[in-house]
């Protein structure tokens, strides 16, 4: 019963937070809503005994990704654009379609489903005993290939991000270590004979 209360409470918060993401005019508020949504999600995941992922979600998403989002929002000074915001002319259709998709999915899950119904939440499941260990073991044995591929994906992300955003500003003074090291005194210093003046 308690679990149910928790579930419905957090579920409501999650839904509200999600709506907040899409409805707030100010992107900063949206981002904060999203953070709220992530935290709520993490909590709900705890109910499902995915402790490691719940933590990861909060740490990685709230701690890194959302900070990145906010950082970008701040950097680009986006809220100046606020007066342009508002709903698109197709918003009613979109909302209708969103409702349709939701209705279709829910209807399918509840009315027609025979595979998903009747499954109740399992307490004390095996997964929760040492979730992190289990996950780690899986990851480095069975899923080693995926792990490697994910590594490449991250590498790709690095390269793409850098190549898109890195730029050498012209009027900024910067230190180039390589140039400093490779500096040759012979070329730097030129001995010149200066004739005495006032001759």
């Amino acid at each position, binding site marked *: 019963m308690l679990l149910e209360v928790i579930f419905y409470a957090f579920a409501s918060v999650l839904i509200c937070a999600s709506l907040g993401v899409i409805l707030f005019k100010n992107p900063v508020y949206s981002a904060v809503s999203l953070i709220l949504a992530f935290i709520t999600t993490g909590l709900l995941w705890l109910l499902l005994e995915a402790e490691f992922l719940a933590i990861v979600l909060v740490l990685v998403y709230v701690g890194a990704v959302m900070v990145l989002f906010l950082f970008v929002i701040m950097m680009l000074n986006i809220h100046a654009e606020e007066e342009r915001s508002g709903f698109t002319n197709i918003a009613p259709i979109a909302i209708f379609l969103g409702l349709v998709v939701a209705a279709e999915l829910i209807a399918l899950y509840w009315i*027609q*489903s025979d*595979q998903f119904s009747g499954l109740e939440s399992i307490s004390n499941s095996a997964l929760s005993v040492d979730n992190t260990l289990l996950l780690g073991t899986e990851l480095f044995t069975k899923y080693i290939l995926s792990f490697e591929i994910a590594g490449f994906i991250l*590498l*790709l992300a690095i390269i*793409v991000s850098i*190549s898109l955003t890195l730029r050498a500003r012209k009027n900024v003074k910067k230190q180039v270590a390589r140039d400093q090291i490779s500096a040759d005194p012979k070329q730097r210093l030129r001995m010149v004979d200066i004739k005495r003046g006032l001759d």
Partner: protein
Amino acid sequence: MTFHIIGSILPEVTIAIAICVVILVNSLIRSVSAAFIHSMILFFLSVALFLSFVSLEIPNSNIFNGHYVIDSFGTNLKIIALIASILVHLASLKSKNNIKNEIFLIQLFATLGVLILCSAHNLLTVYLGLETLTLSMYGMVASNRNSIEATESAMKFFILGAIASAIFLYGLSIVYGVTGTLSLELIKESNLLDGLEMRIAVAFIACGVIFKFGAFPFHSWVPDSYQGSNTTAAIYISSVPKIGAFALISRLFLDSLNVMSEFWSILILSAGLLSIIIGNLIALMQINLRRMLAYSAIGHIGFVLLSFSIVNDGGISASMTYLLMYILMTISAFALIESISSEDHQHIELSDLKGLNNSHPLIAFMLLFCMFSMVGIPPFIGFYAKWIVLSELVNNGMLWFAIVGIIMSVIAAYYYLRVVWFMYFEKTDQPIENKGMMNTHSITSIFVSVMLLLIGLYPNPIIDYTRIIISSFLLID
């Protein structure tokens, strides 16, 4: 055992090594010439191609706990993908437009993604391969980062891609929920298929797959990204990723979810048919050459999907034949366009082609080949592609789809002919400057275009090849 595993994935490993080497060389050696990087990439691609040929000998096996499968189907697709990559690379060697080498690096990532997709045998691997490909495509499209068009199209592509990937994942999650496994092998053997839940899953997955192909109604990214990106990226995204998508659809739908073919074939069919209609109709109205080619690509992909929805070895191999021939044509078209475009003239409008016959007769002639091939006029390969698809459609009682397809291809002829019209029939005061020199790039483009004719005169190899691949794939699994 370990060696066996590594031996089986040597092509992928080669590409991975190539990536690392290129990164290192690029960042460590200060004044590395672009030509060196190009040759290196080409070298690695060729090695990977060679290794793929070698790994054809390897018996079918599941490796990495069944996450990865080595079979002739996958290997052959890899070979095709690698050949296409090499061609793309050669075709974009003009490189004045690509000052930075990153795009070639990103292309290597994409190729890696395609290779993974060819062999992936687990939903997770499939997803990761797909994302490798998709993310690198975003990077490619955006690589011309100082252009508004490029970044805008990349942004759109990114958003739509993210949505598509989420939809795809949603489908995968349901598959997982129903079957309790991520392994395609086990999914196939599961007896829970063709329930309602699986249908939802298939509907979601189909969206993702169709997005990857760039077919209607998930096509919107195609024209924008073709137009916005530079030609090097455009050549790539118009060709190699389609092989990945083909691998994806074959592995997921054809193989694992074969039981549900009756259901998904309808989805694929409707997307294909609508793509043919919508793509060709919109292409009629384009004046930007790249955008026109993009819509024409949507039309062509429509044929691929239409044929795929037949779901028997004839139909699938026809589909694959069409795909291969389409890739050849599109590489050729883009390469030719690239060879006449200069730095200050990236976006080729149709009117830029005026008087091409007088300034570049050979290029014009090859582009003529290419356009007639796309129309589907013999003896160019485009005709055999259309014909083989139509044959299969008629053979499977889908006469009306064949008729719709063929009528649309007649309509499509108009815009292809318009290219010829501008090249040959119009005169201009400001012809495109003829640099006169034959560089590697023009040689490649001409080579590909001549292939259009030669394969057209003797299309046997491709037809037989795809047939063998597909039959073996359908038989073994």
